[in-house]
């Protein structure tokens, strides 16, 4: 019985969203506000139980009480206090006098991830790609790949005017970009249709038992 109710709710909500294709209407508005509310509650709970509780609350309280060490950073209980405090600092923005302290956790977060990203990006997105593109120009496909990359890179030159040889190469680059965009557009249709098939099969199979 419960299953039937939930499936029916699922079906009604699914159709409410599709009604948006006709025009904006109360059913869609209801579905939209529903999903926003649910996800707000969901993420609040999940973030607390998956991150804050195991990494801050538990280590601090359990270790102080002499329990087992848990979590990744649990060498010493006070270490777990640091991220907790950093998290709290975000809220100083509501107190104008000390609001500037709220920038510290952001500094750590953004700086850390910027530093973390740089070298792997250089490795995987520049060096490895150059290496993979250093192809002997012995086949049409290799010439296509090398020429296409040269053109596209030229298109992204900002500090030189696209004139003469550079202009021709940038134009070749644009043609390659367009072929690439068209191809991946065409390639994506399938993925989007797959999702629709998933929903249609939910409606026809799980709800209406037609197939």
């Amino acid at each position, binding site marked *: 019985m419960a299953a039937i109710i939930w499936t029916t709710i699922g079906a009604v909500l699914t159709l409410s969203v599709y009604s948006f294709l006709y025009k904006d209407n109360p059913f869609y508005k209801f579905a939209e506000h529903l999903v926003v509310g649910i996800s707000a509650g969901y993420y609040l709970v999940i973030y607390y139980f998956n991150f804050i509780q195991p990494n801050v609350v538990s280590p601090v309280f359990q270790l102080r009480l002499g329990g087992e060490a848990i979590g990744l950073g649990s060498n010493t209980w006070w270490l777990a206090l640091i991220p907790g405090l950093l998290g709290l600092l975000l809220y100083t923005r509501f107190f104008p006098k000390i609001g500037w302290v709220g920038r510290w956790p952001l500094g750590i977060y953004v700086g850390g991830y910027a530093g973390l990203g740089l070298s792997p990006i250089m490795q995987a997105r520049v060096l490895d790609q150059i290496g993979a593109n250093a192809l002997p120009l012995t086949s049409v496909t290799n010439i296509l790949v090398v020429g296409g990359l040269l053109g596209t890179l030229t298109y992204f030159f900002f500090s030189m005017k696209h004139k003469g040889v550079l202009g021709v190469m940038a134009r070749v680059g644009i043609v390659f970009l367009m*072929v690439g965009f068209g191809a991946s557009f065409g390639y994506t249709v399938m993925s989007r249709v797959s999702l629709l098939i998933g929903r249609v099969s939910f409606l026809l199979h799980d709800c209406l038992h037609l197939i």
Partner: protein
Amino acid sequence: MRREIPLAITFLVGMFMLVDFFVPHHAVSSAAAEMKQWGTIVIAASILLGVGNLIRVHYKKISRKQEGWGYSIVTMSVMAIMLFFGGPWGTIQEGSAFNWMFLNVQVPLQSTMFSLLAFFIASAAYRAFRLRSVESSMLLISAIIVMLGRVPLGQLLTRGLPEQATLPWLTEMIMAYPNMAAFRGILMGAALGVMAMGLRVILGIERSYLGGDK
């Protein structure tokens, strides 16, 4: 001072993480791992800022009876229900009410919204793919070849022809060569853009994300 401290923190942490990639010493990698963990916790802790904003906006709407305030009540009450199910009195495990709400309301709603794209991709293609110029023709032609080459019906169209003339083969060729070359170009260019910007962030030249200069 107020500006220098966060910039100094950014610089030190950024440089440390940068070094982590090159130094195999476990002291460095474990400290880096610890800091990564901190980052995720800071982000997790920030969610309350967002939800606070959401509550404020909807509360205003409801209290002033602005247009659509009834829907704001929907948002606020389901959020309260989720917090009640998942909060201190509830559980979030498999089979709990919290999980049921997630699986039976949020998931179908989200995946249905996602599937709207099947309709939109068709309308976008209809509208934009016109033989207007060389560029837009390239876009159109490669899209049509790939669309045909990807599905069994398209494969049937060129069955019996030599392999190099079949649509699936052409599709693979387009994906593997011109498409890859173009995307590699974007990828490399964007990587350099990211690195230049990342470096500016670490050096404190870029600080818009801290809310401007002053």
